Every structure is written in C-alpha cells, then in structure tokens.
C-alpha cells in the first residue's frame, strides 16, 4: 500500500486514538493480545485479496462495473418463475426495507426493539389473515426450509416417519427437504396425473397408510394448475391420521380459498412475491403457519413473537412465545435448530400486505389470472405448440414444444436474441426430462398485453 489512510470504517485506526488506547493498556500492539495464539497456529502469510478500493467512488465504479455484465428482467421480457417471481415491488416496501433501524437491528429484546417485534407480529398477523390461521412463525430461510420444518413437526406430532409429497413439486425444493428429513424420515413421491398435472389420487390412495406422517402438496402446483382436489387430499390424509401440509403462493390468496378452509393443518410457502425483489434468488423468505393449538405451536423450531401487556396500562408489549422450544434455549434438546433467517423480508411482506389490502390482493390475483388466460389462449393457437393442463391456472403454465421438433434450448436461444427470457426449461436433467421439450412460463401483474403479444409473435416466428 502506497499511503496509509485511516479507514473510514475504523475510527480507532487514527494514530492518536490508537496510541491512547495502547497506553491505557500498557501494550505496544495487538501482538500483545494475539500472544495467546501459539505461533504455529498463526497465519504467517498475506491473504490473496485485491488491494482495497479506499475511495467510495472507486469502489462504486468497480462494483457497478461488474454488475453491468448482468442482463436483467427489466431490460428483457422474462417469463421465469418457479419459486422466484417478477412481481411489482411498491416504493413504500423499498423505503421501509432500507431503513437503517430495521436493516441493522438484530436480536435485541423488545425493550430496545419494540418496533421490530411489532412489525414481525403484524406480518404474521396478515399472513394469518390470508391463510385464516392463527399461529404464524417468524420467517424461515425459504419455502423449501419451511416444508422440511413442517414435515418434521408433523413427524414429532404423530411419531410417524413417512412423508408423501406431490410428484410435481419443484425439484430443488424436493432436494432441500430430501436432505432435511434424513436420516429418519423417508420421502415418497405421489405421481401426478398426466392430463391434469394434479395429484394422482389413486396413487395417493395406494401409498397412504398408518405409516404416513404427512402429505405435502403445492397449490398452485409447480406447473401452474390450481390443485382443486385439495379438500379431497386432506380428507384422504386425515383418514389415515396424517397431517396435511400445503405449499401456497401467498400472491394467490386474494382469489384462492384459504388453506385452512380445505383441511390444511400446516401451511408453508414463500414471501418473495410480497414486495421483495428477486435478487438472483436472494429474496426468498419462507413462512409456516398452523392452527393455534399447543400440539403445533410446541413443535415450531423457529422464533415466535407474541403480543402481551406491559406495566403501562393499555400498552402493547412483545416477547418470545414458548422460547424453551428453541435450540437457542435448549441446544440439542430443542426442536431442530434456529438461527438468523430472513426477518427483514418478513417485515417487508407485512408492508406489502397492508398496502394491498383485501381489494388489492383480489385485483392482483384476478389480474394475473386474466393475463394468463389471454396468454394461454394466444399461445395455444400457435401451430405445433400447446399449453398443457388447460383452463386451471394461476400465474404459471406449461408450454409443450415437443411437436415443434425443436428443443426448448434452441427456442429459448432464439427468444433471447429478441430480448425475451423463456420460462424454466423442464427438459433439463434437474427438472422433468420425462416431459420432453416443455417449459414453465410465468406471468405476473407487470405484464401488459403488448408484452404477451410480443412473446406470441416471437414464438410463432421461432417455433
């Protein structure tokens, strides 16, 4: 380094302050403290890390220079979904999400962080309003994490070790829970009906038994159709004493039935659609909810914030509910484990739901469904292209390209040259290669008719 600057983030790096402290401690440098680390355990070299960009502007040029290598969904027309969706993020969500108070708080008690507790309590309350459920956790890492937690909760509740899951569920979410349920709980896929994309109830019937701990399905499904057999699935699962877990996209709940109304015991999903930017998949934030019964609440591993009273009459106070459950309190005897998850996103989701209100959520849902219905009609009319599982979608649908004689990869490459990002390629080995050349397309409220028409024109040209 040519010149030693006092780093703006390190005030006591100023020589006079440092000297004052060293003098007070009667030591000459940090080496008098690091002496406790034996020499053979010390790192003697230099970390191979670039020279620092000390001026903020220099850093800005550098980082933005790298970011410029990205191509975004705002500069292109994107039909990617499957777990992260390009919904509109209201300005107020960004304002609140960027407040330094929320951004930089951590685990302080409600006595210093009353607002944090109230904000997360309100988020839980509004998620509860959508789901019609009274017990809602602080956020998990993501939806997949929430499924894993819910399945383990169910297993502790009924002592059973088999979890049946919808065969159409997202493969990466499946991968997460496949690891999370090991070693004791086994995971069995239920086939999906090839004509409807919904759960094959005959296969479910075959696989349900007194060993079944829980049944998990997604609604809408990963492929897009609405799982309108939800009530039947719940009945069948309950008949063998199993718990019912559903993964529900919260952006659908202005128009779709609350899961508790069709027999779901534990509901999970992701808050990302609720005012959280996609951030290359960094915007995930899972939720878990259930009925407010001790048998469920006692099994949550996560932090639960509750409202209570204080010494000041009429004032709301907040605190941890049933903290002894957690691994923070009880180490290996706690329920699974808890840690730093995604609370800030949970707060933002609450802001979003308050902005939207019941009418906004209804308009959001209906508007998405109308756009999808229009897109499906237009796309299905393209020769050799068809939309699978018709007339039953929320915001996603599968386009079958098999009859075009072209691969999804080829089609999407061509679309990309026209500034269009095609949807998730199901022919990829990590997706559903047995479906051949097919892809999941997502449409959100950000899409206009012109956008959809642009896709249709492009597909007509390419296919």
């Amino acid at each position, binding site marked *: 380094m040519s010149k030693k600057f006092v780093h703006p983030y390190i005030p006591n790096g100023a020589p006079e302050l440092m000297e004052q402290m060293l003098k007070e401690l009667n030591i000459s440098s940090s080496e008098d403290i690091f002496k406790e680390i034996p020499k053979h355990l010390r790192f003697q070299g230099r970390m191979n890390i670039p020279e620092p960009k000390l001026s903020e502007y220099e850093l800005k040029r550098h980082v933005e220079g790298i970011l410029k290598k990205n191509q975004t969904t705002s500069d292109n027309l994107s039909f990617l979904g499957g777990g992260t969706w390009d919904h509109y993020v209201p300005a107020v969500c960004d304002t609140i999400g960027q407040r330094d108070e929320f951004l*930089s708080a951590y685990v*302080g008690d409600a006595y210093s962080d009353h607002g944090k507790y109230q904000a997360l309590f309100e988020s839980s309350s509004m998620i509860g309003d959508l789901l019609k459920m009274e017990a809602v956790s602080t956020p998990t890492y993501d939806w997949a994490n929430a499924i894993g937690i819910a399945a383990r909760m169910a297993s502790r509740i009924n002592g059973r070790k088999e979890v049946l899951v919808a065969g159409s569920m997202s493969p990466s979410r499946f991968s997460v829970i496949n690891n999370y349920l090991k070693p004791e709980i086994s995971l069995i896929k239920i086939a999906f009906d090839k004509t409807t994309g919904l759960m094959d109830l005959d296969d479910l019937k075959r696989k349900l038994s007194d060993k079944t701990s829980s049944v998990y399905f997604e609604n809408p499904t990963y492929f897009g159709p609405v799982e309108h057999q939800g009530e039947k699935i719940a009945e069948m699962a309950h008949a063998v004493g199993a718990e019912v877990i559903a993964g529900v996209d919260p952006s659908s709940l202005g128009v779709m039935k609350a899961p508790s109304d069709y027999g779901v015991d534990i509901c999970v999903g992701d808050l990302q659609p609720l005012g959280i930017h996609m951030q290359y998949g*960094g915007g995930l934030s899972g939720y878990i909810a259930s009925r407010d019964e001790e048998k469920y609440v006692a099994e949550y591993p996560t932090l639960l914030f509750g409202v209570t009273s*204080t010494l000041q009459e009429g004032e709301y106070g907040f605190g941890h509910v049933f903290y002894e459950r957690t691994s923070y309190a009880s180490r290996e005897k706690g329920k699974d484990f808890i840690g*730093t998850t995604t609370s800030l996103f949970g707060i933002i989701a609450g802001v979003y739901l308050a902005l939207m209100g019941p009418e906004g959520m209804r308009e959001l849902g209906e508007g998405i469904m109308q756009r999808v219905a229009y897109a499906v009609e237009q796309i299905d009319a393209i020769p050799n292209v068809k939309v699978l599982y018709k007339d039953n979608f929320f915001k996603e649908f599968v386009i079958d390209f098999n009859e075009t004689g072209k691969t999804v990869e080829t089609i999407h490459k061509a679309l990309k040259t026209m500034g269009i990002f095609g949807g998730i390629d199901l022919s990829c080995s990590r997706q559903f290669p047995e479906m051949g050349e097919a892809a999941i397309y997502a449409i959100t409220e950000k899409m206009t*008719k012109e956008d959809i028409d642009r896709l249709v024109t492009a597909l007509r040209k390419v296919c």
Partner: protein
Amino acid sequence: MPKGKARNKFQQARWEEPIIHELSNKGVRGLIPPRVEAEIQATTGKVLDNLKTMRREEAPELPEVSQKTVLSHWLRLSQETMGSNIGNDISEGTCTMKYNPRINEEFASNPLFTDLHPMQDEDTVQGMLEIYYKFQNFMKEVSGLDHCSLQPGGGNHAVYTAASMIRQYWSDRGALDTRDEIITTIFSHPSDAATPATAGFKIITIYPDENGIPDIEAIRAAASERTAAIFMTNPEDIGIYNPRVDEVVKIIHDVGGLCFYDQANANAFLGVARAREAGFDMCHFNVHKTFGTPHGCSGPGTGAFCCLDRMYPYMPVPVVDFDNEKYFLNYDIPKTIGHVRDYAGVSGVVLKAYAWVMSMGHDYMRQAADVSVINNNYLEKQILQIKGITSAFQDNGITRQEQVRYSFEKLKEDTDVGTDDVNARIVDFGLPSYWTSHHPWVIPEPMTLEPCETYSLDDLNEYVDVLRKVVDEAYSDPELLKTAPHASSSHRRNKPEELDDPDKWALTWRAYQRKHLSN
C-alpha cells in the same frame, strides 16, 4: 453533551402505535395493482370461475389503510427499533455488530442486481456469478481451506450443512451406524449441538477446565471409534482462545473423526489465524457478521461454508465455478447432499460482503482484527473496574481476544438486581439490549460485549459510563432497574408467563382478538 458520556436524557420514540389492523377503515386503499387492459378482460371472461372449488368466497381480512398510513406506521415502528447503524451496538456480543456501509446498500438496490431471476441463463448473469466466485475465493483465503459454498442462508444453516455433509461422508463409507456421535463444547454456539442433532447424531458436550478452556482430557475420553466429528468454536463465546485447538483436532483425527470449526465470530482473526493452520476439515463464517453486511432484524444472512478437498464430494450444489472463460453453476458434485437452500444463495448478502472485502483488502481486514482486540481489552479494563461486575474465569491470566463474557453475579448478591434488570435499564440511555449468553447460563447473570473495529474510543467510553451509572443506580435505587425500561418505546412486560401459556399467547392479531378481546 460531552462525548464519550452516557446520554442521561435519552428518550426513544414512543408512538403508542396501534396494531395495523386497528388503523383499518373500510374501503381505504394503499396501492392499486397494474390494471388489466380492457381487451384482455373482454376476451378472458370470468377467470375466477376457473378456480372451481378453490375460489375464495370472502376477501381476506387484511387491514384497509392508505399509503400514507402504511408509510407512517412502519416509519414509526422503525423509530422504535435500535439498529446498529443508529446506536452504540457494542451490546450484541457474539454478533459482531459492525457498521454496515451505506454504499453497499446502494449496490444491493441497483436494478442490475435486484432484477435478476435465479434461473436466467448463465450468460446473462456473468456479473453476479463473478461476484459469487470471487467472494468464494476470498473465503478460501480467510479460512485457508480449498472450497467454499455460499448457499447456506445463515451461520447455523452453514453448521447444519456441515452436519449433513458429515452424515453423507460416513454414509458413503457404510459407517453411519457406528459413527453416530458428535462432540461439542458448552461454550460453542448452540447450533454446534442442535444442527448435528437435527441431522441425526447423538451429542456429547464438553465443559471447560478451570481456565475456561474446553477440558482436553474430557475430549480425549469422549473421542472414540463412534466419533463422527467435533464441532467447536474458537475462541468460544467467552473470548478465550484455545491454544491447544490443534491438539483437539489431532485427538479427533486419531480416532478417525472429522473436525468442524465454527468461525461465526472470525472478525478478530482475519489474516491472524485460520482453520487451515489449526488442522480443521471444515469451517464456516457468518458473512453478515464478519464481512460487514447488516443483520436485518435477524436475516437475511449468509453462512460461508468452507472445506478441504476430502469433503468436496459432499458439498451442496450448485457451487459457482469458472472455466477460464465464463462463470457457471457447477452441479457436477458426485455425492452431493443436494440443496440446502433454493438457488445459489442469499445473493444480496454476498454482493454487499464482496464490496466490503473490496473496500478493506488484506491490510485493513487485518487492521479490523487488530483494532477489535484492542478495543475489547480497553473496554474490559474499564468495565472490570466497576463494582459488582466480574468476568468469566477472570483471574486465569489469559488475555481476552474479541469479546468478554461479564457477570453481574456479585451485583445480584449485593442488590438483587440481575442482568435482565441491567439489560432493561441500559436502554434508557440509548444502548441496545445486550446479549446475555446462550443457554444454559454457565456463567451466572451474564453479559457478552463485542466492541468491534467500527466503534470509536468515544463509543467505548460511553458504554462504560452507562454501565457505571446503571450499577450505581442498582446500589442506590434497585427498584429503578427492576421496573426498567422507562425511556424506551414500551415498558416492562407485566405478565411474561402469558407468553408460555397456550390459552394466553397470541402470535397473530386474530389470536389476540379471540383470546383477549372477545369478552
């Protein structure tokens, strides 16, 4: 107010803010979603009928509030929260509450980052992948280990990733039935016990010797052909560096076990001491602590998991790789545990942390370590002069590193005022609640402070002055502490037992209405 002194007249914002549902008025709107063109509406008909049995008959009971109400409400709630960028957050020891630079938030708000979908073609996200790849490399430099995954969503999630990989490692050798024990230490983070237990292992917990260092003979006695691995922190939560950590590693390796190093609090050891030199097979860093990204009221965070070559075959997929021409997501890891989180990781944290490292370089990261330990020793010297405060294993002659676990045991004996009361009272001087200790409280009436490099001498002095004042109050007017806080956004909970009572607890407004307002 003189600098470096307690804020005697502090008053936190107290808005007496209702619950958002109480602000609702029928028909009021906060946001209008994008309209659907008439042409689309005309052709699509009654789409809601397509929902069949899944159609929602009644609108959700969400609050109906104006945009201004929403903004004001959450701004007020933010003012009733003490973030570390606002306050003097030496308080949250073990959490490394350093300054979170604003410029890094700008990067994370840039549409060139926010508007990226995780399933885009790799060609279109080369910038993002470059940041992942380079930050993975930084983590390899800091740990000295060979590989890095940034997929875990937090520190505990990275520890869980280690537990999952260890399970896969032994399963791969057909030895999972016999390698079923994990050794950890009581002053290691609870996740070092809880995550391996979640992954199916039995846990053996080692207590400290008379100097506060994990009892090496107890570790030797616990290690056996059943040992799958050891999970340990160093320094542990009490700030004492274990000088025999390599001997512990050798004991475990000698019985065939693996060694995981919990480096959640690595701030004081950047460029000073690494997992590699101590002989560990794996380690992790809490990116949201050591690498300057904000804690977000408890996330989003990131756990950087690092390991040696021998553990590579079990790593989560994808890791970000580079073929000398382009960056790509590498799924080709033969015996992978699969995903621990969807997609590559919490990209915003990775982006901010990358920027933090680029603003520091080796020299200033090293200086962060130096200043952290000097700050800590300065603070310790002042605090231990206050009557009624001691520290864990105080007279063992070992110099503390980045943090200290203090104890108000003496104060409690003298005044019946304990750490919870002190913790409630310091808020009245504008300091965030401090971290007491993870459970169990092996050290009675604990307080754990960590004055990392971004705190000034004035901040340290202010903290000491507050503690001195509060302790004086405990001796002169204990009731003042027992009823604290007084200048906070809310007052002391008067029925804490209700939070453990299924008939009374309320996790949502719906539950509160039913349990507390229905009569």
